[in-house]
C-alpha cells in the first residue's frame, strides 16, 4: 500500500516529464525512419539547389535535436533531483536574477542564430535573390527572362508560356491550366502572380516555396536535374478549395519539351494555319516586335527549334526588347531597372 | 476568484465548440427534399415496360 501511494505521489512529475521524453523519442524515431515514421525524411531532391538546402535543413534539424535532448535531460534531472517528496525537509530556495547565467543563455542562442544567419546567406542569395543571368549580344549580363508566367487563382494554376518572342505577357503567350512542363537541366525562371488572394507555389522535390502576393510580381527559379513528374501544391490557405489547388510539374528532355510546346502552340493557331508545315532550314525571322515584320507570308512561322535557339542564346533578346519597348510589361521594366541598380557598385 | 473566472471562460469555449459542432451537423429541412411514393415508382416502371409505344 505504502509503495503504491509513493508511486502515486510521483504521478505529476512522471506525467509532465513524459512530454519531453515522448518528444525526444518521436524526434529520434523520425530521424532514423523507425516505424511508424518511415517516410519522414525529405522527398528525393530533383533540383540542383536542393543540396545546399537539404544540408541546411538537416544541420538545423541536428542542432535542434541536440538542444532538445540537452534541455530534456536537464529538465528531467531537475524534476527528479529537486522533488519536494524526496527530501521533505529541504526548503525551496527563492532567488532571482543571475547576471552570469542570463548573459550566458542569451549569448549562446544569439551566437547560434548569427552563425546560422551567416551560414545560410549564400544559399538564400542563390535561391531568392540572384536570378540566373545570361549574356546578351552586346556582352551585358541580364537576368534570364521568365519561361512561364504563373498566375495563381482560386483554385488552380494558370501557366502562360512566353511565346516566340521569349517575353511573357505578350499577344503570343500560350496558356494552359494545371500543367507545367519544363526542360531538364536548364535554369527555369518563373514569373509568379496572383489573380485574387495570397497563394504559395510549392514543389517539395525542388525545395522551392514562394508566396505569391496579389499585385506583386515575383520570380522563382530552379534547375531540375532529371526528368520527373511531381505535384505543385498551394501552401497558403487560400479558401475552401485550397486542398484541390494542385497542378502537375513535368520535367522532360529539351527535345520533348519543344515538341510539347509546339503542340500547345498549334492549339493557339487557327486550324487551317496550324496544319501548314513549318518550313525547315529557312533563316529564322526576327521575333515579333513593334516594327514591320521581316517574315514573308510563307515564312512567318518560327519553328520551335529556332525559337529554342533564340531563347537559349538570346541573340536577339535585347533587340526585341528595344523593338517592343512599348509592350514590355511594367514588371519586366521594373525588374530590369532593379537589376541595373543592383549591379552598380 | 480568478481561477473561477478562468474556468468559466473554459466552459464557455467548450460550449461554443459544441455549438459549432452542432452547426456543422445541420441537415437541410426535409420539406426541401424530394418526396416520392416508392410503390408508385415501381408501378410506373412496370407500366412503362408494359406500354406499347408504337
Amino acid at each position, binding site marked *: 500500500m505504502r509503495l503504491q501511494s509513493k508511486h502515486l505521489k510521483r504521478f505529476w512529475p512522471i506525467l509532465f516529464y513524459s512530454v519531453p521524453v515522448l518528444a525526444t523519442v518521436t524526434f529520434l524515431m523520425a530521424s532514423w525512419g523507425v516505424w511508424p515514421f518511415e517516410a519522414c525524411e525529405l522527398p528525393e531532391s530533383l533540383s540542383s539547389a536542393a543540396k545546399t538546402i537539404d544540408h541546411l535543413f538537416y544541420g538545423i534539424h541536428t542542432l535542434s535535436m541536440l538542444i532538445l535532448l540537452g534541455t530534456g535531460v536537464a529538465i528531467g534531472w531537475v524534476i527528479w533531483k529537486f522533488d519536494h517528496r524526496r527530501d521533505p525537509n529541504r526548503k525551496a530556495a527563492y532567488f532571482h536574477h543571475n547576471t552570469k547565467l542570463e548573459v550566458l543563455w542569451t549569448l549562446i542562442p544569439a551566437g547560434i542564430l548569427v552563425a546560422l544567419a551567416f551560414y545560410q546567406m549564400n544559399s538564400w542569395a542563390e535561391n531568392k535573390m540572384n536570378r540566373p543571368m545570361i549574356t546578351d549580344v552586346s556582352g551585358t549580363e541580364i537576368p534570364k527572362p521568365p519561361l512561364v508566367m504563373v498566375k495563381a487563382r482560386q483554385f*488552380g494554376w494558370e501557366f502562360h508560356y512566353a511565346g516566340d518572342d521569349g517575353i511573357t505577357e505578350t499577344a503570343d503567350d500560350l496558356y494552359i491550366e494545371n500543367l507545367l512542363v519544363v526542360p531538364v537541366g536548364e535554369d527555369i525562371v518563373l514569373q509568379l502572380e496572383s489573380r485574387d488572394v495570397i497563394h504559395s507555389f510549392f514543389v517539395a522535390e525542388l525545395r522551392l516555396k514562394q508566396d505569391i502576393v496579389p499585385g506583386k510580381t515575383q520570380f522563382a527559379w530552379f534547375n531540375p536535374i532529371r526528368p520527373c513528374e511531381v505535384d505543385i501544391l498551394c501552401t497558403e490557405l487560400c479558401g475552401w478549395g485550397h486542398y484541390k489547388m494542385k497542378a502537375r510539374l513535368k520535367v522532360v528532355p529539351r527535345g520533348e519539351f519543344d515538341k510539347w510546346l509546339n503542340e500547345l502552340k498549334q492549339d493557339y493557331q487557327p486550324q487551317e494555319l496550324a496544319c501548314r508545315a513549318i518550313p525547315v532550314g529557312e533563316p529564322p525571322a526576327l521575333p515579333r516586335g513593334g516594327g514591320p*515584320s521581316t517574315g514573308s507570308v510563307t515564312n512567318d512561322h518560327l519553328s520551335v527549334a529556332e525559337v529554342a535557339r533564340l531563347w537559349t542564346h538570346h541573340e536577339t533578346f535585347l533587340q526585341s526588347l528595344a523593338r517592343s519597348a512599348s509592350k514590355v510589361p511594367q514588371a519586366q521594366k521594373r525588374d530590369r531597372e532593379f537589376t541595373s541598380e543592383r549591379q552598380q557598385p | 476568484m480568478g481561477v473561477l473566472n478562468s474556468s468559466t471562460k473554459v466552459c464557455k469555449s467548450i460550449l461554443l465548440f459544441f455549438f459549432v459542432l452542432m452547426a456543422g451537423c445541420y441537415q437541410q429541412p426535409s420539406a426541401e427534399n*424530394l418526396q*416520392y411514393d416508392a410503390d408508385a415508382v415501381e408501378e410506373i*416502371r412496370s407500366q412503362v415496360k408494359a406500354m406499347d409505344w408504337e
Partner: protein
Amino acid sequence: MRRLPDNRLKLTAIRLAACCLALVGLAGCGEPPQTVFKLNSVELLKQEKLFLSGGQSFDDRYSTEIGTILTAFFGTPDQPRVPKVLPEEDPAAEVLSQEKLDAAAGPVLSTLGDNGYHGKGLYREHCAHCHGITGDGAGRTARSLNPYPRDFRLGKFKFKSTPLRSMPTDDDMMQLLVKGVPGSSMPSFRGLLKSDLEALVDYVKYLTMRGQYERYLMAELSNLEEGEPLINLTASGVQDEDDPAKEKYLDSMFDLVGEGLVEDVVERWIDTDDNRSEVPDAPAAMLLDHPDHQALVDQGRVLYYTGGNCAQCHGESVAGNGQTETFDDWTNEWIKSPGVDPFAPATYADFTAAGALPPRPILPRNLSSGEFRGGGQPEDIYLRIANGIEGTPMPAAATLESDQIWALVAYVKALPFIDVDQRLRHKSVNDNAIAK
C-alpha cells in the same frame, strides 16, 4: 466570498449543459440521412405565380407525384438510372451509360476501384460542393461565389461548339472540365483520370436531363383539372380502350413520357456532334507576325464599334462597362415572374425562401483582362462571337461574314496588350473615320 457557492452552482449547471449539448451534437452526426434530390421549388413557385390566382399554391400531392415520376425514370442520387423507356434501342442508352453513372454517383469512396474508375461518388467529391447534389447550382459554397455555379437543370450551357438552343457535345463538356473556366470559380480538373472525367460528363448530362424533365412536368401542372393527377395509374388496369379514363391515361403516358421525356429531353442529346458549328478557315493574317496582321486588327476595331455593335455592351473602353443591368437566363427564369423587381429584395423574398440565390446582374466581359472563360484559343473566341453565348445577352453574330468575325477575333486577342489610353482613342478615331 459569499458568492462562491453560487458560482460553483453555475459552473456545475454549465458543465451539465455542455454534456447535454455534446450528446445532442454527437447524435446529430451519428446517422447520415439518406441522400435525396431536391425539388425545383423555385420553378414550382414560378408556375404558381403565373397560373394560379392570389397566392394559391399547387396541391402537395403534385410535388410528390413529380418526385415519383422523376424517381421512376431517373432513380436516386445513390442509385441513378438511365431513363430508358423502350425495351430495346432506347435513345437514352445511346446518350448515357449506366456504368459511368454508377461511378459518378453515390457517396464518396475515393480509392481506385476495379471498375477502372477512381472509386465511386466522383460527383459528390468534386462537384456537389458548388453545383449541389441535384445539379441546381446551389451547393454549400454557391452563395459565396461570383459568378454563381451553373444550374444544370435549365439545360443551357455557355461554352460549346454547337449553336444556340442545342446541347453541347461530350467533347465540349470534357474540354471544360479539363481547362476549367478562367475568371470564374470553376477550376481545371486536368489531374483526374480520363475515365473519371468521362463518368462526370455523363453524370452532368444525366442531372441536366433530370432537371429539364422536372421543369417539363411542372409546366404541365397548369393544364390539369382541379385534383387531376399527372398520370392516373389506377386507370391503367381498365381494359376498355374507349373508356375516357383509360384514354386519358394513354394520352398522359404518350404526352409525358413519349413526348416530354423521350422527344423533348433525351433525343435532344443524341448525336450532338452533328450539330457542331463549322469554324471556317482563318485568313493567314491571323498569324501574329504576318505583315497584314495589324490591318486585320484595325478592321476588327472598326467592326467592334460599328457592324459588330460590341461596344454597346462591352463598353467603349472594352472594360465590360457598357450594359450592366441585364441578367442571365438562369436568373431571368424567375425574376420575370409577376410582381418581382430584381432590384427590390422585398419583392422576391418568397423566391429566395424557395432556394433562389439573390439575383446579380450579368456583366459583359472585360475584354482587356486577357481572361477568356470559354477558352482563349482563336477558334474558341470565333465560336463565341459567331454562335453567341447561350443563356446570356451575348447574341450570335448573324450579320457578320466569317472573315469579319476573324477580324474581331484578332482585335479581341490583341486588346489585352493595347494600353488603355490607346483603346479609348479608338472610339474617336472611328467616329472621325465614319464622319468622313
